[in-house]
């Protein structure tokens, strides 16, 4: 067979090859997105996501949505602009969660014996569903960036609260007040100090009363909007068909 001859002999065969190629691309892309997103998230939000005693009311609430809205924004721009598929954000988060659980189970538990109840990842799914639903209903990337991005930041803490609340219960430990999360960090030895929550709670951010988390969440939502815009354009850039020949 010369280079000018087709590799397929019929239209049906061509369709079959095309579909096979699609599946190969989908499978590969899923793991490429998973790998890229996971590395990005570990490098930028790492410890806040690794340990229950780092899941505080200020920095975790602020940082996690800002650094995690990145890939969803880029993948949403690709899947919506090119294919009108409204599940870019959920797809990203599912990939991230798969990667995180593989990491937590095999590395954190299997390799270094930290109990899973101490190292489970943050809940990001409520925000991702919100982002996709806003895009689906509005059909507007700008609206999704502003309302979806803000909602992504605001939903993060309530989405995690049911899991985290029991670990923030104050307990008395030999005459000292600690949280259950603090105690986990104290008993299960790791490098670094095990009292992040106590050190980060400096008594500031009380402008609107005693609650710190809403202030952090609004700030996080605001920055998430900006990051959404930025990563939307990264997605567009990767999405470009400028170098593809039209038939």
């Amino acid at each position, binding site marked *: 067979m010369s280079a000018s001859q087709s590799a397929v002999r019929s239209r049906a065969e061509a369709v079959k090859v095309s579909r096979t190629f699609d599946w190969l691309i989908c499978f590969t892309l899923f793991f490429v997105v998973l790998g890229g997103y996971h590395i990005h998230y570990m490098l930028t939000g790492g410890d806040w996501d690794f340990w229950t005693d780092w899941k505080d009311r200020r920095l975790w609430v602020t940082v996690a949505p800002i650094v995690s809205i990145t890939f969803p924004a880029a993948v949403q721009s690709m899947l919506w602009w090119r294919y009108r598929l409204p599940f870019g954000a959920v797809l990203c988060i599912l990939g991230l969660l798969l990667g995180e659980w593989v990491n937590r189970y095999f590395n954190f538990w299997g390799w*270094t*014996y*930290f109990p899973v109840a101490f190292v489970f990842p943050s809940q990001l799914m409520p925000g991702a569903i919100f982002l996709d639903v806003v895009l689906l209903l509005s059909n507007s990337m700008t609206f999704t960036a502003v309302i979806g991005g803000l909602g992504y930041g605001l939903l993060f803490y309530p989405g995690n609260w049911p899991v985290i609340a029991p670990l923030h219960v104050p307990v008395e430990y030999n005459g*000292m007040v600690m949280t259950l999360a603090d105690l986990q960090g*104290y*008993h*299960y*030895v790791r490098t670094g100090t095990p009292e992040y929550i106590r*050190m980060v709670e400096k008594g500031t951010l009380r402008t609107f009363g005693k609650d710190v988390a809403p202030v952090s969440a609004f700030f996080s939502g605001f920055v998430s909007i900006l990051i959404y815009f930025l990563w939307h354009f990264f997605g567009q850039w990767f999405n470009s068909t400028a170098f593809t020949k039209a038939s």
Partner: protein
Amino acid sequence: MKLFKGKVAKLSFVAVLATAAASMIYTPTASAHGEKSQAAFLRMRTLHWFDMNWSKEEVAVNDTMTLTGKVLVFSGWPESVDPPNVAFLNIGEPGAVFVRAGSWIGGQLAPRSVELHLGETYEFKVLLKARRPGDWHVSLNDERKRRRSYHRSR
């Protein structure tokens, strides 16, 4: 070209075999936690650990052992290191193989960070409860007690 390709293939095969053999035949237990990778002034001009004692060499799972000793905080603390205003007595171990059941500095329970004063010597004690079976290297921060610091939990 063909000869070159053959040579590369053969050498690659030998390299793969050598790597596999090296990783299977010689797998020593980790005997340090990278202490020597720290700059000398950091290791030798900040804290000096002495009178170190490990109460047991071998403990059953759920049994405890005690690590005691003293630490001198050098008065000539290096300028380039932050003063020890927030210091935490930690343990070096390969993962959470021992649970830290309690830690004391100068007889005072210290589950949190404390301030250390330059020139002072502090006595300390750490109570460790065996959690995972195996041979583990348990230490504080110093390489000098390395040889005495292997612990077996069964």
